[in-house]
């Protein structure tokens, strides 16, 4: 069994957790995992940063307890300009993030399921600036099939 630390060590040893090491960019999905916090108003909030010269959203995976309203604070600590195009019901949302800037994105996303967002400038997305918003939970009972509980993987 591989522990989280082992995995991080393996990625580092393989040169996959940074820019221009083994590969040209950073392997997607190798960043940190964060968890959104749900406020009394029902909005789920989280913060992501773009660290200097890492070309990654940190955390690169944010887990939400269920689908709904999201408020994401985005901070660009890099010395280059990036952006974020994020999925949201109605239309994707875009925010331009010049060097050392901070903004927010308010999103409406259904769950369960995974959505990806990225910095759509140059090939930021391929270098590592692609990240995931992961929503847990179940669909409402009214949307479930009328059958006994079934085995899952």
């Amino acid at each position, binding site marked *: 069994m591989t522990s989280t630390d082992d995995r991080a060590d393996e990625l580092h040893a393989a040169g996959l957790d940074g820019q221009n090491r083994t590969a040209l960019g950073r392997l997607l999905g190798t960043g940190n995992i964060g968890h959104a916090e749900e406020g009394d108003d029902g909005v789920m909030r989280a913060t992501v940063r773009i660290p200097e010269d890492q070309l990654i959203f940190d955390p690169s995976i944010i887990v939400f307890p269920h689908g709904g309203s999201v408020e994401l604070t*985005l*901070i*660009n600590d890099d010395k280059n300009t990036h952006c*974020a*195009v*994020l*999925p*949201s*019901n*109605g*239309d*994707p*949302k*875009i*925010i*331009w*993030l*010049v*060097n*050392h*800037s*901070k*903004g*927010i*994105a*308010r999103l*409406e*996303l*259904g*769950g*369960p*399921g*995974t*959505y*990806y*967002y*990225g910095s*759509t400038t140059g090939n930021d*997305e391929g270098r590592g600036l*692609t990240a995931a918003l992961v*929503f847990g939970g*179940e*669909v*409402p009972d*009214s*949307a*479930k*099939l*009328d*059958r*006994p509980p*079934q*085995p*899952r*993987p």
Partner: protein
Amino acid sequence: MTDYVDAGEAVPHRTLSATKQQAPPINDVNYERIQNARSEPENWLTYYGTYDGQRYSTLNQINKDNVKHLVPAWVFQAGSVGLHAGASTYSFEACPIVVDGVMFVSGPDGKVWAIDPTTGEELWRYKHASPYDTSLCCGNVNRGVAVGHGKVYLYTLNAHLIALDAQTGELVFDTVNGDVRAGESGSVAPLIVKDMVIVGSAGGEFGTRGHMDAFDAQTGERRWRCYTVPKPGEPGSETWGDENAEAWQRGGANCWVTATYDPELELLFQGTGNPAPDFDGEVRPGDNLYTDSVVAVDVNTGEIRWHYQFTPHDLWDYDSTMENLLFDAPDGRKLLAHADKNGYFFVLDRTNGELVRVFPFVDRITWGEITPDGKVTPKVYPDEEGVPVHFWPGPAGGKEWTHMSYNPETGLIYVPVQEVGATATRRRREFKESIPYWGAGVAVDLDDHYGFVAAIDPLTGEEKWRWNHEYPMCASTLTTAGGLVFQGTPTGEFVALDASTGEKLWQFQCGSGHHSSPMTYEVNGRQYIAVPTGWGGWVEGFLPGLLGAAAGDALFCFALPES
């Protein structure tokens, strides 16, 4: 360090486009208007054009004499941004709707647009966010929207019924109707009947229990749900083994193609999908109702009035979801025509489901035989573990979901035919929710395939003509009073055929294969033919020989030169 620069708040992507998020007002599309859709051929009011599924237009400005002059009027490109579900299998499968000078059409990945049908200008857009990890058997696709009651209805990839304001594209309601954790998804074009919106389930390759659902068109509240696999004690449950058997729980029979409808009978004619697991019948003994059937459903209650099963105890993945085209015999008898995946063409009495005639419409059928009186005899099927079995038609069928059309002037039905076989090797597996549940390894033939458009007289079963092509026909036909049949090919050509003879009169290369439904409309006295293009979907099922063909997602619109 100085304070951060204020980047503000993320804005909708469309605000950085030329889209103005405003369409001209349209007159209300209500039940009465849809019933009389043929009386306003300038519009295409519902998925099939009319409730009967004939895909026939009385427009004749474009006709067999002048079609050679047809040219593109405009092209609309769907495009995509970022990672999305089915990144390699998306396809532009929809049939556009046109109402009072506004086109409404859905694309892959939850996109809906209002478009100026004379110029191709985008008027508004809406994009439902679709989870990247949604279970999809057959690609990121959607077959179209319904328009009525001032709204545009879409059934999304993750099985939500959403309603949008027809003028602005703003969300009116969003109702979750399917369980994505169970492998359910959505691809069907909704149908408006009375004050309801009707949709159906997808997910037959994941062992779901199929259903169709009716919703209040104003509120999104469900009026009824009709399960197409009965549970123990219900009529038909005896076809799923003994009372302790569990197969019904994962039985399939999904409803992922729009029903046709007879307003006099108040019956919906819904085709149902394959049983699950697709190829391993030993775990589901019996006929497995109502898989591979047409069910006649009372639109007011959701009760099944009658059914006809085209492939009892299916072992070849022969969904019968494709349309049930309604037409009347010269003596007035109310009939229903259905060209099934199993290679046979059925004509039924749509008042009671009685078989009128059945005959083959493809050249190669080896899976079994259906006699003229409807007796089904399976011959070749994957019943032995690990033993490959080859059969025709393959699992995509002699005709897949793409639609045929009926021209009352010629009395002919124009069927897009696929001649492709396949090899299935039974491999039993346990059921686990959301994991594909086929019960076999399947490889569709990479060669020895071809296709044609068949012009069939449904009153006699005679094939009057056929237009041959090197590749199977994987797109819907459209027929018009101009004496024409339109067909898109897998290699990108959009062709016009003489409806009487099958002679090819015109073609245009669209740059990517066709797997959609063309339609026609008229604005300001000018007739247009519109066709979404973009090769994708379940290509490995219906034509793996073109898995490497160019993808695309463009909507082409053609007209005669204005001069």
